[in-house]
């Protein structure tokens, strides 16, 4: 019943069973039960044959009825009569009595076979019901497994857990910071006392710096250093920005005896040679000549221009004093003079 029901309901239900057209458990159960029924049938037929063979002679009617009901041959029905020749009348009389009292009563083999068949059918149905129940339980379990009955609660729980984790991390960091501060405060309070009590001078005096330096291979240490990388990391501008160059320069100048330094430098310098070399390099004579000639030429030109303008002014003034017309007097010599003289009025 269960496989038939599954095959009929699965397409209609559209549930998980539709995705499982083959049910190996149900098939195996039916196979076992079918096999058991075949075996029981074979056993029942065996028992029936044994029961037929062990029947008494007086039971010929019944045997004949059974044989008739089971399709036995007339030969088989005649064999008991031949095997019991002594008293056929007595056995036939008892069989007739029994037949008369229980005319349709099945014999023990048929009863046993019926019981086995009923048992097999009951077992088959029970197994089918169990298989259907198992399938339904599997479907329900799958639905339960795939369904999250309380997603919001889970999300809230997850958020709470995350929040708690973050709060825990923050609390841990705060605690570490507080612990470090506390430790530094303690160190700040403790270290001065320790330093005042410790005789650092005595300790330093006991240290043999020379021996330490002798043990150090400074060449190897310096050779390991990547001076270029160190130099690239140094922010010169930032260092210079922090320096108070004015104060440093003033301090240096205050400590320096510039007069003595200058005197010493001058004593060591051959100023004459330096001056001669500078003059040779500069070609000072040529520079002086060029500059002086330029200045002289400019001054002379200015003087000449001023003289020309003054000449014109004086000439015009004299023309007015002498009642001359402009253009008649002070005409230049040369080609222009001829024209001017031609225009000169004749007295």
């Amino acid at each position, binding site marked *: 019943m269960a496989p038939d029901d599954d095959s009929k309901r699965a397409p209609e239900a559209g549930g998980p069973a539709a995705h499982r057209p083959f049910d190996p458990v149900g098939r195996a159960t039916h196979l076992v039960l079918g096999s058991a029924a075949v075996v029981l049938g074979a056993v029942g037929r065996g028992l029936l044959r044994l029961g037929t063979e062990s029947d008494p002679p007086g039971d010929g009617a019944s045997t004949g009825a059974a044989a008739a009901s089971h399709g036995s041959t007339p030969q088989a029905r005649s064999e008991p009569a031949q095997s019991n020749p002594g008293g056929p009348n007595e056995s036939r009389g008892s069989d007739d009595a029994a037949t008369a009292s229980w005319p349709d009563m099945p014999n023990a083999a048929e009863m046993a076979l019926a019981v086995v068949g009923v048992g097999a059918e009951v077992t088959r149905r029970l197994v089918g019901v169990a298989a259907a129940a198992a399938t339904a339980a599997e479907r329900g379990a799958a639905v339960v497994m795939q369904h999250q009955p309380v997603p919001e609660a889970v999300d809230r729980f997850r958020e709470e857990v995350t929040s708690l984790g973050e709060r825990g991390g923050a609390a841990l960091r705060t605690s570490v910071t507080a612990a470090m501060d506390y430790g530094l405060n303690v160190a700040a309070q403790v270290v001065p006392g320790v330093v005042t009590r410790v005789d650092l001078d005595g300790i330093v005096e006991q240290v043999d710096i020379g021996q330490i330096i002798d043990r150090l291979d400074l060449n190897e240490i310096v050779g390991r250093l990547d001076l270029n990388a160190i130099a690239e990391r140094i922010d010169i501008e930032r260092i210079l920005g922090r320096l108070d160059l004015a104060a440093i320069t003033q301090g240096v100048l205050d400590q320096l005896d510039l007069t003595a330094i200058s005197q010493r430098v001058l004593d060591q310098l051959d100023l004459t040679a330096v001056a001669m070399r500078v003059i040779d390099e500069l070609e000072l004579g040529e520079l002086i000549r060029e500059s002086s000639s330029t200045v002289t030429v400019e001054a002379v030109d200015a*003087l000449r221009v001023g003289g020309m303008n003054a*000449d014109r002014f*004086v000439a015009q003034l*004299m023309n007015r004093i002498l009642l001359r017309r402009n253009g008649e*007097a002070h*005409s230049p010599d*040369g*080609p222009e003079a*001829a024209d001017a003289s031609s225009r000169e009025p004749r007295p």
Partner: protein
Amino acid sequence: MTAGVRPEEARAIQGQTAGFVTRLAANIIDMVVLAITWVGFLLFISLARFIAHPLRGWHLPEPPTWESGLTICLLAIVYLTIGWSGTGRSVGKRMAGLSVHTSSGAQLKAGRALARAVLYVVFPIGFVWVLVSRKNKSLYDILLATSVVYDWGLRQAHAPAAVPEASARER
């Protein structure tokens, strides 16, 4: 300083007879040069005397006035003669951008230059005739047929055209 000086303008006046102010400036410069020369001459004499008689000490000679005047006049005549007969320019005229030529534009010879220098020194007031002259000529120029023209060295100062009628009329 020479920003206002245009070469074209300067070239246009080359060869024209110079006016009173320019010539006066040139004469003043020549007088300064003569004065410096005179002082140098006195220093040279005193140095020579000091070298010859160092025990007498260093002192400038104090010649009589006539002697000084005569020496200065001779010095001026020599100086002007050399300047005008050579290049036509004394130091003052060179600085003022002038040169002395004959009326035909030729260079002065030594004789005419000497005569002009003597007249220049003996009768300096003759220079004032430039103010009156219509062609900017002094008495020396009129008497010796010379002319003082602008000559900055920018070009060959062209010879002033001879104006016989004008010269005759002035005379």
